[in-house]
C-alpha cells in the first residue's frame, strides 16, 4: 500500500533567530478602527522580528494616552511598563541604569510628550538614554475626547471645534537643538519608511526619537486638520526614503531605492541607507536639518525621513562608569560592602 501523499506543511517564515513573527505580536487592539497607532504597532512588530531581537530582551515602555495603551497590542513576550502621564522617560532611565542589556522601546503621544512629559523627554535626550522613543503624534488628546495638544498646528481645526490659535511645538526641532543623537519624522501610513527608521533606531546606541504623524481617525481627521490622513498623504514631503540593511543576512531581499543614496553606519555595524530626495541634505548637519523643518513648516508641509544623526555621542551608561555586568546581575555579596569595610569605617570615625 502506497503512502498517502502528505499535505504540504504550512510554511512558517522564521527570522534570523528562528522565531516566527507570531512571537512578536500582542493582544487585540482596543483603539478606534483605522487608528494610525495600530499601523505603527504593526511596524514595531515587523521591525523587531526582522531585526531578530529576542522578544524577552525588549522592554516596552509607555506613559498614558491612546498611544501609551499600544504596548498591550505588540510584543506579547516582552515585559512592559505602562507608567504615568508623560513620565515614561524617567522610569526607563532608572530601569536602564540597573539593566543596560535590554532594548528599551518607548511609545508616547503628543499629549504625553509635548506637555507634562516635555521636561522628561528633554532630559532623557540630554542624558542620551539608550532607547527608542516613538512619538505617535496626532495633535489631539484622544482618550479625553479630542482637545488640542501642544503639537496641533495653527489653523488646524478638529471636528466640532474652533481652529487652534496657539503655536505648535515641533519636537523634532526641539530634539535637534538639544543634540539628540537620532531624530526622524515619519508618517504612520508610510510603512516602508517607518520600518526602516525603527529598525535603524533599534540598532542605534543612544536616544532615538521618531516623531510619527499618526492621524486620529476619530477626533482629528477632518480635512481642516493639518494632521488628518488626507492632508498628510497629500502634503508629505519625503526628505529621505530610508532603507535598512541589517548586518545579519537579510531575511528578504531589500529593495534598493532608485536614485541617490547614502550609507550611514550605526553602532552595531549595520548600515542605514538613505535615499536622498533633497540632495543637499546632510543628516549630520543640524543646521540643514532645522532648515528643512522650517522650510517645510513655512509651506505647511511635513518633512519626513532621518533628519539628524550623530553616532559619536556617549550614552548615559558610559557616563555612569558602572561595572561591566548589568547591575541587576551583580551578586548581592558584591553589592554589600564587607564587614571589614564597615569595621574600618567605624575605626576611622573613632580615631
Amino acid at each position, binding site marked *: 500500500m502506497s503512502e498517502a501523499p502528505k499535505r504540504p506543511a504550512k510554511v512558517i517564515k522564521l527570522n534570523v533567530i528562528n522565531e516566527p513573527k507570531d512571537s512578536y505580536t500582542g493582544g487585540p487592539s482596543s483603539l478606534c478602527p483605522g487608528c494610525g497607532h495600530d499601523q505603527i504597532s504593526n511596524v514595531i512588530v515587523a521591525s523587531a522580528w526582522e531585526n531578530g531581537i529576542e522578544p524577552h530582551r525588549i522592554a516596552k515602555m509607555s506613559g498614558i494616552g491612546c498611544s501609551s495603551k499600544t504596548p498591550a497590542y505588540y510584543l506579547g513576550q516582552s*515585559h*512592559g511598563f505602562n507608567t504615568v502621564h508623560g513620565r515614561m522617560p524617567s522610569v526607563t*532611565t532608572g530601569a536602564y*541604569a540597573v539593566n543596560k542589556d*535590554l532594548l528599551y522601546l518607548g511609545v508616547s503621544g503628543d499629549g504625553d510628550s509635548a506637555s507634562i512629559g516635555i*521636561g522628561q523627554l528633554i532630559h532623557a535626550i540630554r542624558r542620551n538614554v539608550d532607547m527608542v522613543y516613538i512619538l505617535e503624534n496626532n495633535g489631539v488628546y484622544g482618550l479625553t475626547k479630542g482637545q488640542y495638544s501642544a503639537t496641533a498646528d495653527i489653523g488646524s481645526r478638529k471636528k466640532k471645534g474652533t481652529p487652534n490659535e496657539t503655536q505648535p511645538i515641533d519636537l523634532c526641532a526641539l530634539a535637534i537643538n538639544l543634540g539628540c543623537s537620532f531624530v526622524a519624522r515619519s508618517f504612520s501610513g508610510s510603512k516602508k519608511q517607518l520600518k526602516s527608521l525603527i529598525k535603524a533606531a533599534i540598532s542605534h546606541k543612544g536616544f532615538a526619537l521618531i516623531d510619527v504623524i499618526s492621524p486620529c481617525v476619530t477626533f482629528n481627521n477632518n480635512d481642516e486638520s493639518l494632521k488628518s490622513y488626507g492632508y498628510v498623504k497629500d502634503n508629505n514631503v519625503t526628505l529621505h526614503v530610508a532603507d535598512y540593511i541589517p548586518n545579519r543576512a537579510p531575511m528578504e531581499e531589500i529593495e534598493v531605492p532608485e536614485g541617490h543614496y547614502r550609507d550611514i553606519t550605526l553602532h552595531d555595524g549595520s548600515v542605514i541607507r538613505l535615499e536622498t530626495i533633497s540632495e543637499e541634505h546632510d543628516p549630520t548637519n543640524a543646521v540643514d536639518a532645522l532648515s528643512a523643518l522650517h522650510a517645510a513648516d513655512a509651506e505647511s508641509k511635513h518633512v519626513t525621513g532621518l533628519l539628524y544623526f550623530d553616532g559619536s555621542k556617549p550614552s548615559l551608561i558610559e557616563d555612569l562608569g558602572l*561595572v561591566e555586568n548589568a547591575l*541587576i546581575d551583580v551578586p*548581592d555579596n558584591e553589592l554589600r560592602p564587607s564587614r571589614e569595610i*564597615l569595621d574600618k569605617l567605624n575605626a576611622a570615625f573613632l580615631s
Partner: protein
Amino acid sequence: MATIANDFTINIATANGTGSQSANLILLQSLFEMGIPVSGKNMFPSNISGLPTWYIVRLSDLGYQAPGDRTHIQVLVNPATWDEDLEALETGSVVIWNSDAKKEMNREDVISYPVPMSSLARKINPKIAKLVTNIVYVGILAEMLGIDQVALESALSKQFKGKEKAIELNLTALGLGRDYFKDNLSKEDPYIVEEREQDTAKFFIDGNEATALGCHFGGVQMLAWYPITPSSGIAEAIIEYIPQIRTNDEGEVTCAVIQAEDELAAAGMVIGAGWAGGRGITATSGPGISLMQEFIGLAYFAEVPSVFWDVNRVGPSTGLPTRTQQSDITMLYEGSHGDTQHIVLIPGTVEECFEFGWRAMDYSERFQTPVFGLSDLDLGMNRWACEGFTYPEENMDRGKVVRDRDVFEAFEEFGRYLDVDGDGIPYRTLPGSGMDPILYRGTGHNTKGVYSEKPHDYVALMSRLKRKINGARELLPAPLMREETECEVGIIYIGSMENTIQEIDDILEATGLKVSQCRIRALPASKQVAEFIRRHETTIVLEINRDGQLWGILRKELPNDLVTKVHSVAYSDGQPPRARVYSDLIMAKLEEVEQ
C-alpha cells in the same frame, strides 16, 4: 563663687556664610573629645551668605540633648540680631560680644566680656578677618570655660583634615582669643567644663551621613535625586563614599547616580530601577514627596519596590526650609490618591539611620511596595554621638523574585498578582527573564496583570494590598519602650524627639507623675502600641507638628475602647524641641483630661 560644670547652654549668633559653622563644629568636637555629653544645633537660614545663624551648644552631664530652656552664655557677633538676642537673656547670663561691631551693650544685669574680635582677627590676616573672627570667640570660650588645648587641637585637625595652613592659622587665632581673655578680662561667671570618662568610645556623625552609609550597606544600585534642603546630605554622602566602598579595582562602580531634573523624575527612576529588579532610592524632603505622590500610587498599585527618604522640614509649601518638623507622617503613610497605605520607617538615632538605610530596601523588595524613611532636619543635619554602626547580620532580602525557569515551571499557576502563599505578597519575574512577561500598569488589573474593571477583581486586589501591608506590622522595627511599673502616663513619640524625651520625662516625674515612653519606629504600627495604650491610664501622643498627625493615624487603627485613652500634644515653632515647652503642654493636656 560656686562653679557650674557641664550644665549650661551656649548660643552663638553669627551670620551665614562667614565660616562660623567650622568654628562651631570645632568647639563642639573639642567638648566631645573631653568626654562631655554635648549636643549642637545649627539654626541656619535659607540663604548663602549674610542672614542670621545661631548655633546652640548644650552641655549636660545628664545627657540632655535638646537646646535647653535658656541661654547661659551668649556670643554676639552678628549686629543684625544683636538687640533681639541681648534682650532675650535672663539676668546673670554671660555675654561675650564683639566690641568692634559698633553696637551698644545696654544690659547691666549680665556678665559682660567685651572682645575686639574683628581687630584681633585683622592682626592675623586682614583679608580673611571675618573668617578668623569666629575662631577668636572659640579661643575666648576655651579660656573662659577651661577647654583642654589638646582636645581643641585634635578637633581642629579633624575639621581641616590635613590642611596644614588652615590648621596653623586657626591655631594662632585660638591662641589670640585665649591670650586676650587671660590678659584683659577676669572670670566673673560660674561656668566651667570638666573632663569626663566615657563608658564607650563614641564619635560624632549626622543622620544624613549615617543614612547614606546604611544605603550602601544595603547594596543600593541606583540613587536618583534632586537637591533639596535638608536631604541633600544623604545623596552627597552616598556619592562621596562610592569611590571608597563601591568601586572595584578597575575603577568601575556598582551604584549608579543620576541627578534628576526634578523630584518627579527622581521618583520615576527609582520605580524604573525597582521594576527592572534593582535597588533604587531617592532622598528628598516634604516638597519633593508632594511632587512624587502620583508615582508613589503607581508603585503601590503596580507593586514595585522603591525607597524614598524624606528628611522632614517645616511645611506647608516652602515653609521654613531650614527648620525641623515631624509633619510629613500622614503624607507618607497615606500617600497618593485613592486608598493607599505605605510602610514608613522612622529612625530616632544615627545608629537607626544606618540600620533603616539598609532595611528599607529589604522591606521594599520583600513587600514589593514603596518604603519611606522618615528622618528630619534635626536628626539629619545635626551631629549626634554614635557608638558605631552594626553590620547587617542577615543576607539581603530580595523578596519573592522567580529567577530560575525550573522554579517558574514548578508553579501550578503563575500570575504576577496571584497570592500563592496567603500573605498577600505575590511572586514576580524580571524584565529580560522571558518568564511571565506582563505589562505593568497603574490601571486596574486581575491576578495575571491584565487590565480589568471587574468589581470582584478590584475588590480582591485592594483587599490583598491591605492584607499585604498589614502583614508587615510585626515584621518592621518594633516600638521601643521604657516603662514604669506604675502605668500612669504613657508618651508615644517618634524620631528625633528621642533626643528630648528623657528631659521631658524627668521634668514630668519631678512633679510626682510616673511616665512611660514608647517610641514608634515604623508604620503600620505594631500591636504592641495598642497594648501599651491599654496598660496606661492616659497616653499622650507627642509630635512636632500642629495637627497631631501620628495621633490621627493611631486613632484610626486602634480598637474603639482605646480611642478615648489617647490624647494629642502637637506643637511646632520651627525650633528643635525644647523639653520645657513640651512638658508644659503635656501638663496642660493632662489637666484638661482630668476635668
